[in-house]
């Protein structure tokens, strides 16, 4: 793994992940499935840590992934790769933005892309959901885990609870009951 490949992998993610930080999750899933750069467990840790720390979740995820791959410098290189397309595209658009003001075709493209991103997120959910029941390469349908999942989902969905709160809470519950 060289720094150059890492940089361009995240440059590519920065170029195609449309619709906010969580849109990069399908691309990280691709790093798990296709390139085998990180494990499925890594991905789950990355998402949790990104949500709990300050800053944009997409940036957090890139830094952690780069770190998991080749240490501190890897974290920095992955982050630089991710932000470079933004700096270039915004720099270019800022030049003619004052003249055009509205960009209806761009909005139309964005709405369509957003729909595709939902499909991608849905498939990421399926993978993460199955991961819950993975125990050392065997699939165990643990009734405690199913109960916790349903209880957390219902509470979080109806009361709109901050994810940081239930990530910490479930971490504590997991440690106490020895999940």
């Amino acid at each position, binding site marked *: 793994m060289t720094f150059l490949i890492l940089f361009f992998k995240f440059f590519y993610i*920065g*170029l*195609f992940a*449309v619709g*906010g*930080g969580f849109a990069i999750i399908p691309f990280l899933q*691709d790093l798990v*499935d*296709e390139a085998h750069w990180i494990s499925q467990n890594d991905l*789950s*840790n990355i998402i*949790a*840590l990104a*949500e709990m*720390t*300050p*800053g*944009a979740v*997409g*940036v957090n995820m890139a*830094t*952690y992934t780069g770190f*998991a791959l080749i240490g501190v410098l890897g*974290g920095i290189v992955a982050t630089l790769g*991710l*932000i470079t*397309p*933004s700096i270039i595209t*915004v720099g270019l658009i800022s030049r003619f*933005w004052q003249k055009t*003001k509205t960009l209806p075709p*761009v909005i*139309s*493209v*964005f709405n*369509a892309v957003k*729909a*595709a*991103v*939902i*499909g*991608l997120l*849905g498939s*990421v*959910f399926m993978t*993460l959901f199955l*991961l819950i029941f993975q125990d050392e390469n065997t699939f165990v349908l643990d009734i405690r885990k199913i109960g*916790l*999942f349903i209880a*957390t989902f219902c509470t*979080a969905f109806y009361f709109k609870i901050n*994810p*940081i709160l*239930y990530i910490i809470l*479930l*971490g*504590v*519950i*997991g440690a106490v009951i020895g*999940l």
Partner: protein
Amino acid sequence: MKLFFLFLSFFKIGSFAFGGGYTIVALTKSEFVEKRKWLTEQELLDFLALSQTLPGIISVNFAAFLGNKKGGFIGGIVSVLGMVLPAVITILLLAHLIAGADNHPIFQSALNGVRIAVAVMILNLTITQAKGALKSWWGLLLAVFAFIWIFFKLSPAIPIIIAGFVGWILFQRKREIFK
């Protein structure tokens, strides 16, 4: 001096932005619209809409727009770096701690709990996003296509590019109807 202030302001925003994009917008509003008066409320909304539409992390795009407005291309770079630096530092520090505790059984149990929380979070995110974006049959079709696509472990960039084309064609057709 202006560049230094841009860096400092975004460093501050990046340090306190827990939970991603929308917190960042709220902090930017108080820093640049209310305190420094570098930006009008309308400009903030325009930059936000554009940042969401363009590829890349929303808050990074947003920082780049503001930086470009106040300090040109270099201003954009400085603002983006200021914005991501706190996140990069925090993640790198935490990643070191986690790497050390990784094999402890209690930590593993806690992570099993966290994994449930992460799956809940992604499911919630998918549902909330779907409410806004899947109003039309073609939006639904794009989402289903993207969902199935990922099961074949293929690159998530393809559904995004296809969705972009569909959005573009739909816009052209709409324009012809209204002509």
